[in-house]
């Protein structure tokens, strides 16, 4: 298939060449190519992390195919429809969260998954997208920057679902949902004074909160912030993953030669800690390639955001790109011992279906925002 540029009415679209049906398909080649490059790299690492077993890679490629379908579907939906559906989507996901809460209450078990018979999924993953969309929807016909009362409404929109997820309890995802929403608000142009004010308030509140906490709660926070103080529990993973990363050196031990991973020292090596496997086998060089690919995606996303023509698209595109970077940074930071351990997979690389599909859908939205621009007269 070849790439072509087709004039069509007042719109310009990059489309695929070939049969007429495909000609109108919106894709964003720079995005898609980078996504596949990262996913391909992921397959290579996954094969090694799974102990040279192909079945894990096969499952992951099925997930990637579903993800691609999600990308293509989302890319065809013009942003204005997305905007119209946003409140309904937000409310629906909030309802699902409530359902999971109630079901978990009854089942006394894990409260994250919703079983739909065929597939099980975590509504909290959907909220990672729904929360910034709702913020963007709320702000799309209002004058930016938002006023103080508007900000208060937005805080409710963000903190209610984030709190519910943190209650599941899945503090990590709750924080990610909150950060996705807050990033959207920041992009909307909250004045620097308000940001500084909130920062100052947090600085004051932290010691007060700290003093009012019970001893055991403080101990838990300390373990969360510094897992290495607990080498029999949470610290074990971090100690082993640091050894894996450090021993990789500049050029790595070579593919399939990582001892930490293959001797099963490294926990969760195909999911949350796959970054360490890559570090061990491909070294700093390999990681640099991966990080550059991630930056290309983020850069392309921000470019799309700047090019976008309405507030909703702009805010949504910016939020998706920055949230994506947050995932990368949190996962890599956690595995290398910079950040506390929260269960965040490495985007597009870690084995896991929900994350792969939602991320691809998000990039589909970026493609749609870019592909459905109207050509404006200068």
């Amino acid at each position, binding site marked *: 298939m070849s790439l072509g540029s087709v004039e069509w009415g007042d719109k310009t679209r990059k489309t695929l060449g070939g049969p007429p049906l495909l000609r109108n398909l919106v894709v964003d080649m720079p995005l898609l190519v980078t996504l596949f490059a990262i996913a391909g790299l992921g397959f290579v690492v996954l094969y090694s992390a799974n102990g040279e077993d192909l079945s894990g890679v096969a499952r992951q490629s099925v997930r990637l195919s579903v993800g691609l379908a999600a990308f293509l579907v989302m890319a065809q939906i013009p942003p204005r429809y997305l905007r119209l559906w946003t409140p309904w989507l937000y409310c629906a996901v909030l309802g699902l969260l409530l359902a999971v809460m109630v079901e978990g209450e009854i089942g006394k078990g894990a409260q994250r998954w919703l079983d739909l018979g065929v597939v099980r999924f975590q509504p909290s993953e959907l909220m990672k997208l729904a929360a910034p969309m709702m913020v963007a929807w709320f702000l799309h*016909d209002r*004058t*930016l*920057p938002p006023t103080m009362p508007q900000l208060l409404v937005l805080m409710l929109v963000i903190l209610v679902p984030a709190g519910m997820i943190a209650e599941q309890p899945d503090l990590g995802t709750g924080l990610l949902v909150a950060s996705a929403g807050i*990033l959207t608000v*920041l*992009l*909307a*142009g909250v004045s620097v004074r308000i940001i500084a004010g909130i920062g100052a308030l947090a600085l004051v509140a932290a010691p007060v909160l700290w003093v009012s906490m019970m001893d055991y709660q403080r101990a838990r926070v300390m373990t969360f912030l510094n897992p290495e103080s*607990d*080498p*029999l*529990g949470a610290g*074990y993973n971090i*100690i082993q993953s*640091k*050894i*894996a*990363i*450090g*021993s*990789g*050196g*500049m050029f790595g031990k070579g593919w399939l030669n990582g*001892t*930490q991973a293959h001797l*099963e*020292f490294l926990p969760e090596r195909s999911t949350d800690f796959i970054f360490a496997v890559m*570090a*061990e086998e491909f*070294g*700093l060089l390999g*990681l*640099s390639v991966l*990080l550059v690919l991630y*930056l290309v995606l*983020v*850069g392309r996303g*921000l470019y799309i*955001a*700047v090019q976008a023509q309405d*507030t909703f698209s*702009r*805010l949504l595109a*910016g939020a998706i790109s*920055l949230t994506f*970077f947050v995932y990368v*940074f949190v996962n*890599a*930071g956690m595995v*290398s*011992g*910079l950040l506390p351990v929260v269960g965040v997979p490495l985007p597009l690389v870690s084995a896991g279906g929900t994350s792969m599909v939602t991320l691809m859908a998000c990039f589909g939205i970026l493609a749609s925002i870019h592909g459905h621009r109207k050509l404006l007269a200068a």
Partner: protein
Amino acid sequence: MAKRFQKLKDHWREQRLFFSRVIAAAVVVVLLTGVLVARLVHLQVIEYQRFSDLSQDNRLRIEPLAPTRGLIFDRNGLIIAENLPTWQLVAIPEQIGDLDAALAELEELGLVEASEHAVLADLVRSHRGFERVKLRNLNETQAARFAVRRHRFPGIDIQEGLVRYYPFGEASAHAVGYVGSISTRDLERIDRRAYAATSHIGKTGIERSYEDLLHGQVGYRQQVVNAQGRILLDPASADAQASASWELETKWPVPGDNVVLSLDMRLQLATHEALAGARGAAIAIDPANGDVLALVSTPSFDPNRLAGGLSRSDFATLNADLDMPMFNRALAGQYPPGSTVKPFFGLAALQLESSLAHEDISCPGFFTLPGHSHRYRDWRPQGHGPVDLRGAIVQSCDVYFYRLAVDLGIDRLEQTMKAFGFGAPTGLDIMGERAGVVPSREWKREYFPQPEDKVWFPGETVITGIGQGFTLVTPLQLAHATAVLAARGASYQPRLLIGTEDAVSRDVDWAEPAPLGAVEASEEHWAAIHDAMVGVTKDLRGSGRTSMLGTSYVVAGKTGTAQVFTVAQEEKYDADEVDERLRDHGLFIAFAPAEAPRIAVAVVIENGGGGSSAAAPVARKILDAYFAEGVEAAAAEAGTAAIGRRAAGISAPSFGALAAALGPAEPQGEATHVPR
């Protein structure tokens, strides 16, 4: 004017604002990526050599260190539970090639039992690779047998360890409880990290309820080991400099607290001996503070066998024993109290001013309700003749109490029983206590499913008056109520723990007695009941006289005989057994010295026959032991030392003074406070 226009969307301004924010965001993204890269450079370039060494043929291993379990002392400082050195067979999962083959080979050597194969395999697999899993304790021969074949078992090792030891064995088992191997079920209720190095956990009694105090805090040390698990560097070794360059950390475990119990082991042993051969329970309580001085349930079991790792089959035999040695009759056995309730109802008669309280009645040997023909018989078929309240208690006249029960009515009987703590757990600080039953209209309404059974019948009030019918009490409740009676209404929650000793600082924290709501009655009424109970042991017609002849102290007591009118449904039919098991339960409650009570006792002997023949002699032995002159002096000495410490708040007690004075109960009983 400009204000009005702000309401309109200024697209140009907005786009500029957004652009500036995106630029700021991009800068942050780049900066954070820089931080990440710097971290990776630090790990992968600067510290490369260290991590490379660690990963290639060296590994940093974290070895959890078990805390030493706290000791358990009796009130005089005798050791009831201690830790003795032993050999343990351990497995390190990550180093074992074929677990099943290794276990099979150990079975051949007679080091583990074939029946335990699956359990042990599960246990090993449920732990993380670096954890040392304790398989079982070895004796010296077994340890030697393994040591010479050690090379054949990669990942299996022997290590020195401590095993829990109870010098008094069976005698302390039901009060102190025992520790056993941590089961997969235990793993669900504990913090696995805190128990990473611990192999045993409290299962019952004090060991269970004060597990958190006794266990202590886990420690760990980092070691550098090679691929075979051989330790290359250990911070505990001499090569401190090398350790420092590896930044090896050691955090020593914090030993558990020692606990001091209210038990007087001398009395406990005497009680255990007095109950020998019987199925039953006896409890002694200090009425002044609720201290449980002795708590025995027989038959008992040897806690040392359980702590040492009892095989599954042995445990099953122990559990299946028809006499139920694992069953704590003192707390969980529920028996009809029989005539032991009479002093309590007698007090109610006085206090509630029943017309019968100051009346002589004539006892013809039976009682009938007005308008009914059913005869409620006295235990003495020919009757007791004319009796008053005192006489009815002394001779245990049933007819008097049938009439009293009808006069008071079931509601007041219920109130009386509940005031003395019947019908609810007493709150003793070990688990497994049952509530017993204090029957009432409400209880019957709730307990029975059929509407026709929910009605309270007058006849049921009659038999409640002599502690029969629905009433059920535990020996502990009986002892507690007797203590309240002895203390003229002052009530303390029964307790076993009286102090905790910090294992490091040796500071003892003495617990205050916990007062419960007092039973209110006038002084003369208490005196009248006490006098009647003294009559039980002193008067010619007293039902407890023969057992208490010639005591150097005055005993106030009451006998009780509980009919076993139904064979338990699940009991299998066995001609010899059933005959014996249909015999009456014998009960006896007592306190002494009657004028200033220092001890209250309750004894229950299952199927022992009457209270005066079976239970009272046991109580006599317990009281004799308590008031025995020589021992009393020694106890007083150690006791005053303890009380002096308590009063003056002096720390670092010198435990074990009494041990030598008494002579060992068993060869190992000489154990004194082991310094650690």
